[in-house]
């Protein structure tokens, strides 16, 4: 039971399994922020994507439907943000926070409201199947990392694929170049004929959609059981905002960041078992408070924020026009 290799393997396995939704949230928010919008509504957006995706997936008994609906529902949140901040020039911070409270409110409303009629995930075979572990032929047989890295469910790999695709999109396509220009200097983009409005809208919707997929993942991870007091998302939306900074607005670094944060996140649960399995080297793990692990993502990000504001910003991926509403005014 306390077999060290087993414990280690499970630990590594869970780092990935539990924390992949962070990757979705982070990549989605990177897309949004690269277009110049600071969307604080990630938590609410993910919740909306989660619950509607889950319900649709159960009703249609299809993983694909679940993914699609979660993308669209979350995308609607992005659309709302876009209408309010891009067209109607509302304050981005207030709008984002409101989307979070509203989104969570809607989440609980729907969940509580369904009450007895809440569909159990066991009834939706294809969802269960979709979330079950895939054994990648050959690789999954490797010791330790075989289970840890190559025996995950489809959505884990989808998340990584999306992260890489977004990275490629941002850095190697012309549309991605234009998007980055919109986030850095909307005036410059405008002057060469880039439709800044359209870019902001589309990427707010798309980025939010990606966040929604992460929410859907969490729904499945929680086996679709609805708790009245705690949302599935459980603060991951806020961590994602931190991760964007930590990953320097780079989706591939976000994968790394997810693993790092995941490491500390999972460590607090596994500290006991690891200390037990490796008493000599890891015994001290028991002494570190669990809350420090939980606080670590935010502490590190705070330090990164402060440090990068002291240095010059050339190395930073932070879009220069982040959080500023763009208004092309006539004389």
């Amino acid at each position, binding site marked *: 039971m306390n077999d060290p290799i087993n414990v280690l393997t499970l630990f590594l396995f869970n780092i990935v399994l539990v924390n992949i939704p962070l990757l979705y949230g982070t990549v989605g928010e990177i897309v949004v922020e690269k277009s110049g919008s600071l969307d604080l509504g990630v938590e609410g957006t993910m919740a909306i994507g989660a619950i509607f995706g889950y319900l649709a997936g159960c009703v249609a008994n299809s993983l694909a439907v679940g993914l699609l609906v979660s993308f669209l529902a979350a995308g609607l949140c992005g659309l709302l943000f876009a209408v309010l901040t891009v067209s109607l020039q509302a304050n981005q911070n207030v709008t984002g*926070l409101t989307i979070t409270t509203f989104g969570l409110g809607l989440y609980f409303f729907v969940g509580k409201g369904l009450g007895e009629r809440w569909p159990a995930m066991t009834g939706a075979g294809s969802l269960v199947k979709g979330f079950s572990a895939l054994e990648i032929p050959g690789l999954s047989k490797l010791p330790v990392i075989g289970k840890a890295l190559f025996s995950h469910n489809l959505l884990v790999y989808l998340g990584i694929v999306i992260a890489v695709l977004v990275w490629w999109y941002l850095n190697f396509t012309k549309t991605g170049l234009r998007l980055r220009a919109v986030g850095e200097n909307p005036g410059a983009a405008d002057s060469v004929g880039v439709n800044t409005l359209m870019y902001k809208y589309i990427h707010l919707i798309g980025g939010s959609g990606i966040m929604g997929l992460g929410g859907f993942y969490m729904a499945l991870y929680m086996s679709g059981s609805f708790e009245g007091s705690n949302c599935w998302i459980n603060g991951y939306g806020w961590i994602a905002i931190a991760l964007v900074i930590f990953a320097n607005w780079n989706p591939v670094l976000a994968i790394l960041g997810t693993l790092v944060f995941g490491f500390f996140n999972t460590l607090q649960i596994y500290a006991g078992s690891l200390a037990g399995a490796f008493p000599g080297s890891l015994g001290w793990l028991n002494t570190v408070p669990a809350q420090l692990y939980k606080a670590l993502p935010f502490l590190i990000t705070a330090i990164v924020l*402060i440090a990068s504001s002291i240095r010059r910003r050339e190395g930073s991926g932070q879009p220069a026009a982040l959080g500023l509403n763009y208004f092309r005014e006539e004389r």
Partner: protein
Amino acid sequence: MKNRQPLFHVVKRDHAGPGRQAAAYVAAVVLALLVGAVLLMVQGVEPVTFYKQLLTMGIPGSRYPWRSVENFIKLFVPLLITSMALALAFKMRFWNIGGEGQFIMGAFWAGFAAMKLGGTLPQPLMVVVMALCGALGGGLYGVFVAALKVKWGTNETLLTLMLNYVALYFLQYFAETKTDWNFFLDPDSARPKFAKFPANAQMITIPIGPFNLNLSLVIAAVLCVLLYIYLNYTKRGYEIAVVGDSPNTARYAGMKVGKIVIRTIFLSAALIGLAGAFQVSSAGILSTSVTNDVGWTGVVVAWLAKLNMVGIVVASLLITVLQFGCQTASTTYPSIDANFANLLQGVILFIVLAADFFTRFRLARTRKEAAK
């Protein structure tokens, strides 16, 4: 050649008539109630009775009406103070999203004082000490972000956001670590549980007949008045107004903008810490959910009230009615979550944000240019 110019284009408005703004608010509330009504009906709940329950907050016909009022006040006071404090910061265009963290730190240090000194000091003095500890705790937690922003331009939105979670986990540590030195915890309980504060470390209540008036309400009211006077009549308030309006003008007038920002944010964070101290002394015990999301709701209230002190009193009253009302109404209707208030709140704010556009800007018809 096709004329691709849009039919209308957006032009900034000179000023917004108050009538127009008031109309927007009324419309927002009405629309929110309508949307809410639709949602209620979907759940099979009759909207009118629900809303009646909500607005009366279950007080008439209740067995302990005064208790309800007292609980209402316990919800209202922290929100009122926090909203005022956030408005203070927002006036300087300093986006203090760290209300939650500053509140927690205030609560924590007040609790610290309570547990350490609770047995030894008389109640009135104890309450003052807790208030001071809370204010200082919250204030320091916020002011250093202001210093960083002034010195290096650090993004205060993101930094205060991160600090919220650091504070939360800091508090959780004391909530969950059962050791000998952790005097916060109840020694009698096997599982970690916060201990109740000693009797004289609790907020003073003034009995008026069957009703216990929580002193913090009185203090909050006084603070309201003081803050109103501070902002509108004192020199410091004048400085805040000028800096918030146009920092260049402030500099031209010889004002030290950095100092003013730091001083004001300290005040803002200290007030929030104070609110935390009030919350915790009224409850008589620490808790990891001590904030009750007031840091977020405060932002909504401050924005709805357009950072205006009088507006904040009204808006926080309205939102508390909404929240408290939903809480009580949802006990009768188990299918409606207490968070229903957040839904209504959200809709109200969305509509106000949208309507705001039409008070700040207007659509002007693009005049057809005659090409001769």
